[in-house]
């Protein structure tokens, strides 16, 4: 391979830490690395996997003392010759090393390129590669541990079971075609049907897990809704712990939406959003505010629905509820301190309409604020109990396609269509499964998959 096939990048997250790692990979990367190192042991090339202490030099100048490891192909992460430099964790040192390597013919690695090379050289499969990608992107501990479990093979095991299920159904259907004289058709079709329904249910659960994964790893969109003046912005500020939004006694003060990240303990991250109050539209700007509010709501994972203690549940609340469709909702009776005698009445009303017990809060006395935080946390924590997660959009799309094909299989059987068409539909489902497992990809598809990968890893 020619020189520009050597890639270089920092493998650790950017920023100041004790140690940073810079990686080089590709044929001849040993030569490039050695030309800015002094004090290497005599053996040439250095023994694979051995740790050496060297000085990193820029011409005559020593820029850092570092440990380096040379990995001989194929015994490296990428499967190519590879060098890892453990230098001191300063962005200045790191960028000097990278530029020296560049001046010697290496080029900066593109997003996800190390993992892509590992994949091409058969060191990791597509599911593991995607797990590595989601690990590097995860914003939370829970997200990382999910990605780790996928890397360890958790998802592959589950998909392995799905694959067995699909192959069984296929075998039964094909047997009906190939051995019409020996196979009891009715009994076999019954079995096919049971297996199919089971499989569809299982796949639907798996598909839903991607949403949960996104929420857990990238943060949940939590949106506060309620009529104007219900106390949304005040609650927003209380939950954040600082005055972010402007609060006033005039209804309709908040017109655009504001969003801020908020960690719930070590494990979870939410993006809290405050939007304009919903209700009668009074002017043009208001109208637009309501439009944008709708968009925000449709992207929400969890909604906090404030019902003002003074107004109680009215037509506006009915309308709001109608627009929330099947989202996860936490109901709140807000501004409880303003009308203590009304609390019970509003509480009962909300409960009878929604079937859920609301949380009673006051942003003045701080009553119920912790409970609300705890409720949101509990929702997140219940998501993390799912067990198996999909970690990429690609995976979700393929599972979704599998479900479509399997449902069509069911439908074709119901309509009494030719079994050869049923078999064809089944093959489509299996083809999706093969793609899921990374079998049968062409090079364009591979490029597409790796487009969204992060630098370094």
């Amino acid at each position: 391979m020619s020189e520009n096939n050597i890639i270089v990048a920092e493998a650790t997250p950017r920023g100041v830490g004790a140690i940073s790692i810079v990686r080089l990979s590709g044929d001849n990367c040993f030569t490039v690395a050695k030309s800015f190192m002094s004090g290497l042991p005599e053996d040439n090339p250095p023994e694979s996997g051995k740790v050496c202490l060297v000085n990193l030099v820029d011409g005559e100048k020593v820029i850092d003392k570092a440990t380096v490891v040379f990995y001989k192909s194929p015994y490296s992460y990428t499967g190519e010759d590879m060098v890892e430099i453990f230098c001191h964790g300063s962005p200045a040192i790191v960028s000097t090393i990278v530029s020296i390597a560049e001046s010697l013919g290496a080029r900066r690695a593109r997003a996800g390129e190390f993992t892509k090379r590992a994949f091409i050289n058969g060191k990791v499969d597509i599911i593991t590669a995607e797990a590595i990608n989601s690990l590097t992107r995860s914003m939370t501990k829970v997200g990382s541990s999910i990605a780790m479990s996928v890397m360890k093979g958790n998802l592959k095991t589950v998909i392995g079971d799905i694959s067995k299920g699909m192959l069984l159904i296929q075998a039964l259907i094909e047997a009906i075609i190939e051995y019409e004289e020996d196979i009891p058709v009715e009994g076999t079709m019954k079995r096919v049907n049971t297996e199919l329904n089971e499989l569809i249910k299982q796949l639907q659960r798996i598909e839903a897990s991607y949403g949960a994964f996104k929420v857990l790893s990238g943060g949940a969109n939590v949106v506060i809704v309620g009529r104007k003046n219900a106390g949304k912005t005040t609650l927003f500020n209380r939950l954040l712990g600082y005055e972010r939004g402007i609060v006033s006694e005039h209804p309709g003060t908040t017109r655009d939406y504001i969003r801020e990240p908020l960690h719930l303990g070590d494990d979870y991250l939410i993006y809290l959003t405050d939007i304009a109050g919903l209700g009668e539209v009074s002017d043009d700007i208001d109208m637009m505010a309501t439009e944008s509010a709708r968009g925000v709501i449709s992207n929400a994972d969890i909604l906090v629905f404030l019902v003002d203690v003074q107004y109680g549940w009215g037509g506006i609340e009915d309308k709001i509820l109608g627009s929330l469709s099947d989202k996860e909702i936490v109901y709140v009776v807000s501004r409880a301190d303003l009308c203590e005698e009304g609390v019970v009445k509003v509480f009962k009303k909300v409960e009878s309409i929604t079937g859920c017990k609301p949380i009673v809060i006051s942003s003045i006395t701080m009553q119920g604020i912790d409970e609300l935080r705890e409720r949101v946390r509990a929702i997140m924590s219940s998501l993390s109990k799912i067990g198996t997660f999909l970690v990429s959009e690609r995976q979700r799309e393929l599972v979704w396609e599998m479900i479509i094909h399997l449902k069509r299989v069911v439908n074709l059987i119901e309509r009494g269509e030719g079994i050869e068409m049923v078999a064809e539909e089944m093959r489509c489902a299996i083809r999706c499964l093969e793609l899921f497992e990374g079998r049968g990809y062409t090079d364009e598809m591979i490029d597409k998959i790796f487009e969204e990968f992060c630098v370094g890893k």
Partner: protein
Amino acid sequence: MDKVVVVGGGHAGCESAYALSKMGIDVLIITLDKTSLGRVSCNPSMGGIAKGHLIYEIEACGGVQPLITDRASMQYRMLNRKKGSAVWGLRAQIDRGLYERYMTEFISSIGNIEIIQDEVVDVITEGGRVRGVVASDEGELNCSAVVITTGTFLNGLLYRGEEVWEGGRIGDGASKGLERFFERVGIELGRLKTGTPSRLYWRSLDLDRLIRQDGERGILNFNYEFVRDEQLLCYIAKTNRQVHEVIIKNLDRSPLYQGHIKGIGPRYCPSIEDKVVRFSDKESHILFVEPEGWENELCYINGLSSSLPADVQDEMIHSIEGFEDAEVAWYGYAVEYDYVNPIQLKPTLELMAVDGVFLAGQINGTSGYEEAAAQGLVAGVNAGNYVLGRKPFVLARNESYIGVLIDDLVTRGVDEPYRLFTSRAEYRLDLSQYSARLRLTERAFEQGLINRNRLEWVEQLGRNLEKYRRELESRRMRVGEEDMTGIEYIRRNSNPYNMLPIDDAYRQILSIITVEDIRYENYRKRMRREIDEARRLMMIRIDDIDYDEVDGLSTESRQRLKRVRPANLDQASRIPGIRPSDIISLMIYRRKKRDDVKESRAG
């Protein structure tokens, strides 16, 4: 003039010889018995699911098997009739005596085919190519190419209980010597086995206690003529618990379970003892009682293949309802024989190791007359092209079952007897029996296998199909309350075959193909996309690659590729054990090579 020797006059050999003769090449068939060409060693029937498809494809390529089958037929049935026509499989019961008589007459009457009765014991090569063969009696005979189709004969051993004797099938000796040639040129041989059931006398069976199975009238035969004549009956019998007990009790006397037979048998066509052992919870297995010929007093018991000792088979047979007083003409036996793993062949069925030596039929590890004939056809045409210096004849997987069969053989290799199934074809809905001529006529014409009349017939059919479709579009049909076009009717009715014209063969073909075109339309669109994708990979040729130069291949993958030597990336992607990442590595290597070439041209 160049001559091609065909070793063996079985199903593969006859097909090879006939194809070669049509290409204008002189053929010498050397076979052990010149009076029984195309002998049916086992069941007296041709076709069935996937096998019927093969016969229709051979028909489209102007082959001999469909001609003789229809002439020797005694009964027809369309298997899978209740399913869609893509998987219908025509099956004919044939008169075993007539079949070999007609085949012998037919092949012997062809001017440029000479037949001698002898045994080929060696192949002479010179500078990596074939120069001739050595026969026991005739000695050295020169030729420019040879097609070896020795079936189950190579070092054949027949087994029945404790008895073992040499032979290629009952009544025939084994053939020996060719293994020395194979060893000399570095070809690995393996061992496979198969078996055949007992033959009983009709007169001794109580037919009233069996289920009668009639032939189907009014269907098309392999030559697209209506079947109107009288047909012979088959019967259905069943094994029972008592039969199974007899087998289990005597398993230790089976050569298979004693470990004498090393060869691997067919999983999909197992002996009765295999079925009883493997499916121990099944209380009964179905048996078909099939006539051996119009005048033949014997019947063939399909499903009762066995290599147990004669006395055990006797007890077993007499425990079957309706067979209590059966007289046995001869008992079932197993045959074990040498085969060449076809992974050592090119897609033309030529040995990679020696130019001009082609292999076809059971010697390549397949089983079945139709599989043998299909290979015979392809090997014959390619031997012809080799002699004439023309391009190879290779059919793709998306245009024929023949292509699927041969690609499977040379890409995946064989370690148990290979039989074709429709499920082996990824483009099954494109490959129905009735589309065979549409798919293959042009290819066959290019090779000189069929005449211009046939080509014109197919072109006319194409035009008529369009016309017929237009007719359907403008025809209004009432179904219940709804008013719809003929096309919609076909799309929505789950059994559109009930409107097939039953007295006009041509209209019938026309309607079946149209029904398929309409009903499979959506699936075919998707298949087109997949085919296009495969075609892109097919365009990337890798037959000249040095795999040691390719980065990123594992040692195992390198070995696999070296063994198969795939012609292109599409074929490589089907080699078992080859990972997607290997394909990508090859792709990158190819691209780089191309860039290098560009660079060096520019520089």
